[in-house]
Every structure is written in structure tokens, then in C-alpha cells.
């Protein structure tokens, strides 16, 4: 199979911006709202999610010629659930604080639409390498998206960044950004999660509208210029014939 240059790079990058699973496709919203109280929890969730996504994409892609069409979805769900169980046990053993913080949301990676969606839409049709790159891009895109939400929620809600509570292997430190007493604790509450998500989506929609407007304006200008040119050409040719 011949492919264009830079295909792998684009395949990787599309998950981060153009097809970001959270902000563009609006998939996997439950953990994005539930595990973004602190940046640390969001990073943990992103890493676990990416591991499950990459492993299940590789396995689904390897088995894509063996699994028949009729039992596709149940087979994928079992594959994903198996990897989630493995990840859950590892987290419980090596990062018990992360396990406690994320709680049931580690198990809920099974029903995260992104994992099943990538398995159905991409890994079941493409080679192992392409699926791996696609999964890495999507995983990173999702991780960055939930970290973005967590940054706003943690700074506005607690006024400070704190690290070392969940990943206990790094020393605990706290970075005060908003002076004490001026934080808005609403952003640590569920309502704050919805507001942050809404505002981020609105900003994205605003930028998209802006781009579309600029493009249509440019097209309009181009049209007018062409008309004028045609007019001038007609006039000049008319002048010559006189």
C-alpha cells in the first residue's frame, strides 16, 4: 500500500486538535467532568485511559481478521474490560492513592465511548501500527483536554496547584496562584465542572465561527474583485473597439 508522506504524523496529530475526542466529538464526558477536580487526578485518569486505549486498539487490530462481523461489539467489550481489569489491579497495587481518588471511574473506562468507538471505527479496519498511532494520538488528545479542564477548576476552585497527594513518589508541593480567601469554591463543585466545560466549548465554537466568517468574507471579496476585473476588462476592450 502506497501512502502519502507525513501520513503517520497527521494520523497522530488529528486526535489532539482536529478530532479531539472530548472537545470536538463530545465523547467520554463522564470522567472528564468527574475526575477533573485536581490536575493530578486528571493526569492519572489520562494515563490510565491512554494505556487501555492503546492496548485494546492493538489487540483489536491484531484480531481484526479473526473476529467475525456478528460478534464484533461483544468481543471488543470483553477485550476492553479485560485491559481495564488489568490496569485497575496495577493501580490498586502500585498507586493506591490514585485508585482511591478515581474510584469507580477506573472501571467506567470500559463504557467510555471513545475506546469502543476507536475500536469500531479505526482499529477494526486498519493495520496494527496505524491503530497504535491513532490510539496514542486520541489518548494524548483526551489527556490534554481533561488536564485543560482540571487546570481551570483547580486554580479557580482552590487558588493553588498542589502536587504529591496522589503521585506520592514526588515530594508534596503547593503553588499558590490566587491569594487565600479569593478562590471560588463553586469550581470544585459539580456545577463548576459543567460551567468550565460549557465555556471551553463556547470558546471553540466562537473560534470556529470566526474562521468560517473570515473565510466567507475572503470569498466575497474575491468574488467582488473578479467581477470588477471582468468589468474593467470589458470596458477596456470596449474602449479599444471604438
Amino acid at each position: 500500500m502506497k501512502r502519502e508522506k507525513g501520513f503517520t504524523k497527521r494520523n497522530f496529530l488529528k486526535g489532539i486538535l482536529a478530532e479531539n475526542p472530548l472537545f470536538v466529538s463530545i465523547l467520554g464526558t463522564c470522567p472528564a467532568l468527574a475526575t477533573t477536580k485536581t490536575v493530578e487526578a486528571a493526569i492519572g485518569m489520562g494515563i490510565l485511559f491512554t494505556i487501555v486505549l492503546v492496548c485494546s486498539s492493538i489487540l483489536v487490530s491484531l484480531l481484526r481478521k479473526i473476529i467475525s462481523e456478528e460478534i464484533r461489539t461483544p468481543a471488543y467489550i470483553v477485550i476492553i474490560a479485560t485491559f481495564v481489569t488489568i490496569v485497575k489491579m496495577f493501580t490498586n497495587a502500585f498507586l493506591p492513592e490514585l485508585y482511591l481518588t478515581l474510584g469507580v471511574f477506573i472501571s467506567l473506562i470500559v463504557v467510555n465511548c471513545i475506546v469502543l468507538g476507536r475500536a469500531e471505527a479505526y482499529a477494526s479496519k486498519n493495520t496494527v501500527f496505524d491503530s497504535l498511532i491513532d490510539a496514542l494520538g486520541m489518548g494524548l488528545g483526551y489527556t490534554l483536554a481533561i488536564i485543560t479542564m482540571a487546570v481551570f477548576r483547580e486554580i479557580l476552585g482552590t487558588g493553588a496547584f498542589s502536587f504529591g497527594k496522589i503521585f506520592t513518589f514526588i515530594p508534596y508541593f503547593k503553588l499558590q496562584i490566587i491569594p487565600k480567601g479569593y478562590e471560588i469554591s463553586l469550581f470544585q463543585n459539580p456545577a463548576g465542572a459543567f460551567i468550565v466545560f460549557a465555556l471551553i466549548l463556547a470558546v471553540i465554537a466562537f473560534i470556529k465561527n470566526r474562521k468560517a466568517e473570515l473565510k466567507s468574507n475572503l470569498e466575497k471579496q474575491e468574488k467582488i474583485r473578479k467581477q470588477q476585473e471582468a468589468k474593467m476588462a470589458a470596458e477596456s476592450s470596449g474602449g479599444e473597439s471604438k
Partner: protein
Amino acid sequence: MMKILVTFVLAIISSMLIDNVVLSRFYGICPFLGVSKKVKSSLGMGLAVVFVIMLATLICWPLYQLLQLAGIAFMDTVAYILVIASLVQLVGLFIKKYSPTLYKNLGIYLPLITTNCAVLGVVQSNTDQALTFLDSIANALGTSIGFLIVIVLFSCIRVRLESANTPKAFKGLPIALIVAAIMALAFMGLQGLFSGINL
């Protein structure tokens, strides 16, 4: 006996209103945002979810005891998702055969329920918190009815949003999420509901 009954009812109300699935525990956001544009379809989705959550809880609690007996309790997530997926299929077939009208109304939402994290979320958190059978049922009932109430309320507001004059960037999902935020604030006001009751 009386005390058990009171605890049961309080547990239902608490998981229905105070710890609402969608607005404070964040389960089932996808159908909450996806299937709430019309009141009728949101009602259908809500009812189907109540049905599946109740059945899944009734099956999964004994199943976990069996898994524990067999010494493979760590396989719980895999077992649950299989139960839920096949349950959804079975319920679909059953309704199709015996009540075609109901199937027509619920049918399209049934496959979506497999990936509704409210179902797996309830079953899994029942296991993680080691709830008794009665408490599990109370949790399932409260959670699923809470989902039904919230999705129907939300869709009623969303229908009106369609004709509202919202800023261009907020059209569609962003303004709906703001509405959800305000609903979450309103539900937060219920938090002190049981503070006066001693059991």
C-alpha cells in the same frame, strides 16, 4: 422492621435527589446530553434506563457472591459488562415480541444503554462499597429514578432553549451545559435535607 423500611426509603431519596446520578456523580452524561432534545425521547430513554438498571442490579449482586465463592472476584467488571450487554439485547428481544408499540418507542434507545455508564456505575459502586442486597436495590432504584427525573426536566428546558435568543457561540451544547450547571446548583440546595433526621 419499621426502621429498615425508613432506611430503605431514605436511601432511595438520598441517591435520587441529594446524590443525583447526573448532576453530582456524573454518570450517564452522554445520553443526558445526547437524547434530551425532545421530551418524549428523553422519557423513553429514562424509562429504559430504570428498567435495565433494576434488572442488572438484581442479577449482578448474586453473581458477585458466586464470583467470590469461585475465588475470581477480580473478574467483576468483565462479568458485569457482559451481563449488561446481553441483558440489553434480551430486553430488546422481549419487548419486541410482546409489546411492539413499546419497542417502537424504546427500541432505538436500548442499544445505547450498554454504553451508558450509569448502569455499570451503579452496579460497580454497589460492589465497591460492599452494599447489602437491600441497599443495592435502594441505590439502583434511587439512581435510576433520579436519572429519569433529571433527563426529563432537562429536556423540558432544552425545548425552550431552541427558540431562545442565545449568543451564537453558545448555541447548542454550551448553553445546555450552562443549564445543567444551574440545575446542579439547584440540586446542591437539597443537601441538608436529612440533617434533622436521626436514625
